[in-house]
């Protein structure tokens, strides 16, 4: 929900509730005042009647004017206290449906007891109440409409710098070195916000590049010691006096060094891709490339009794040649490693798609995490878990989208562009 909508909704509901409450209160207040007014009139009428009876000892003639009726009824008891009442319709004329305010009191004339009733129509008062309500509600509606309009226009204008900042922020990439450029704003709060965002993002970029540099330098620095260890192991291997136990120990050291140097090379490769060191592209004949790879892997597959079927059509794409090699090697290596003997590999190349599927006894990969660095489904795996992140990274820089599907015992990777 937009901020305006939310604000307007709250604003509208609150105004309507206040308006309803206040108009109800207003209505009752006006009514109370008007009825008091009528009651005063009725009291004056009573005094006039009583004065007349005192002077003449007879009842005055009952004169009915437009909105006032006076009637006398013989009564057995004398009504001590006067009584006010609001009734619908007229006691005299039953057809009248208007509201009447009546005053009843006892009168003694000629020795007889009468119940005098003075009724006064409330029509005038009602009319007044209605018009007052109408005017006030119209005013409030008008105020509501005006504030709604002003709010939406004004708020939109007030929040504009905020949306501008958001737009700028949307283009922020931690791996790009250029810092964000916010348009200047007169509003202190937004200027403050921009300033803080700028500071934070600059810091993030700086730390990211430091970290990247660190990884890169660390990997570079590791190359030489690795080379030394490897060469020393190669020399130690020449020693003819090595016992079988020592040889086994050496083999372990060899494997560990092998793993470490491959890991290091993968990290360096990732750093290089991130640094855009493979920006140079040329038109690559993917069919030819894939045929070369299939040829290179052929012996390996034959050895493991993996059957391979391929269906390749011509496809030329602008790519970096080195990265394409690495990508295809990694995809095919994966399909080989996670296979079993007498399994199969299918390679399909269409004009805008490569699909590589392989049989496997391994379970479905976690598609949320499979491309993360050092992710490995099986913790004891002898692979470093960088292969898939390299594949993903190459796809990203080459403008390929990659999908993974798992059906039955088949893993499928689909690259499309």
């Amino acid at each position, binding site marked *: 929900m937009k901020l305006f909508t939310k604000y307007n909704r709250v604003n509208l509901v609150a105004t309507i509730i206040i308006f309803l409450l206040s108009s109800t209160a207003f209505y009752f207040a006006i009514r109370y005042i008007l009825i008091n007014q009528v009651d005063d009139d009725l009291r004056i009428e009573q005094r006039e009647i009583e004065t007349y009876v005192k002077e003449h000892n007879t009842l005055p003639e009952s004169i009915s004017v437009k909105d006032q009726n006076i009637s006398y009824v013989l009564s057995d008891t004398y009504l001590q206290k006067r009584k006010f009442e609001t009734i619908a319709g007229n006691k005299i004329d039953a057809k009248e449906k208007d509201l009447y305010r009546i005053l009843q009191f006892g009168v003694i004339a000629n020795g007889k007891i009468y119940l005098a009733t003075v009724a006064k129509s409330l029509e005038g008062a009602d009319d007044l109440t209605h018009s007052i309500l109408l005017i006030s509600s119209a005013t409030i509606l008008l105020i509501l409409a005006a504030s709604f309009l002003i709010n939406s226009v004004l708020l939109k204008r007030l929040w504009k710098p905020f949306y501008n900042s958001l737009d700028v922020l949307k283009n922020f990439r931690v791996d790009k070195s250029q810092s964000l450029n916010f348009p200047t704003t007169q509003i202190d709060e937004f200027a403050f916000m921009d300033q803080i965002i700028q500071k934070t993002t600059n810091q993030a970029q700086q730390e990211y590049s430091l970290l990247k540099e660190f990884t890169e330098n660390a990997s*570079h620095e590791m*190359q*030489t010691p*690795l*080379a*030394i*260890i*490897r*060469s*020393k*192991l*190669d*020399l130690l*291997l*020449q020693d003819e006096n*090595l016992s*079988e136990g020592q*040889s*086994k120990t*050496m*083999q372990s050291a*060899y*494997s560990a*060094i*092998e793993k470490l*140097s*491959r890991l290091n*090379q993968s990290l*360096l490769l990732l750093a*290089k891709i991130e640094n855009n*060191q493979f920006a140079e592209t040329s038109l690559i004949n993917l069919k030819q490339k894939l045929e070369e790879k299939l040829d*290179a*892997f052929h*012996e*390996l597959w034959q*050895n*493991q009794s993996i059957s391979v079927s391929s269906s390749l059509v011509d496809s030329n794409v602008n790519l970096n040649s*080195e990265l394409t*090699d*690495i990508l295809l*090697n*990694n995809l095919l*290596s994966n399909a*080989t*490693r996670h296979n079993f003997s007498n399994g199969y590999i299918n390679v399909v190349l269409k004009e805008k798609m490569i699909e590589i599927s392989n049989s496997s006894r391994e379970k479905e990969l976690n598609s949320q995490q499979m491309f993360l660095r050092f992710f490995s489904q099986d913790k004891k795996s*002898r*692979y470093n878990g960088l*292969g898939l992140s390299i594949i993903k990274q190459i796809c990203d820089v080459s403008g390929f989208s990659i999908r993974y599907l798992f059906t039955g015992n088949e893993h499928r990777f689909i690259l499309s562009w």
Partner: protein
Amino acid sequence: MKVLVIEDEKELSDSICAYLANEQFVCERTLDFDSSMEKILLYDYACIILDVNLPGGSGLDILKELKNLNKTDGVLIISARNSLDDKVFALKTGADDYLTKPFHLAELAARVNAIIRRKSFEGKNEISCNELRLDLAEKNVKVHDGPVDLTRKEYELLLYFISNKNRVISKNAIAEHLWGDSMDVADNYDFIYTHIKNLRKKLIQAGAADYIKSIYGMGYKFNV
């Protein structure tokens, strides 16, 4: 044959010299730019193993100087930088080969041997080793003048062994040599075992001696 190792990391330089120092090679070493320049001006080498990052200058400048002097020394660049651009640049400048650190000494020896062969046996592209004769141009092998039918990988394997005669080569080094480090299936040792078994069988059947010995399952040795 004299080989010059220009490498500032003394430990690595020690290993290289220790591995190469057999009846064939005499190793000389320099650790920095200036003494290397001096050496190449004064002497000729069959092969120069050249590190790119040196104290006092770049190995590539030494390479350029060699070319300016019209020297025919073979040059093998060893670098910690594994980048195609660097490789292409070094080869264009006149290096004969490029090897990325870390490498196996067996691989280095094979490359040095190949460079020296290319430089010194012009026209006669053949290696013999007792009854074995390898034709490098045709990539075929003869035993007692009879042809042996080897697959491409078996031929490469044999050449690798002959370049590292009487040396133990680890399975890892063999895997990397056959597959390169780009194909990430190099730890598939069963496959190497199959190749070696087949190679051995074919050579013995052709009448050659049994040269290839397994060393405790960790590597192989070509005994001559």
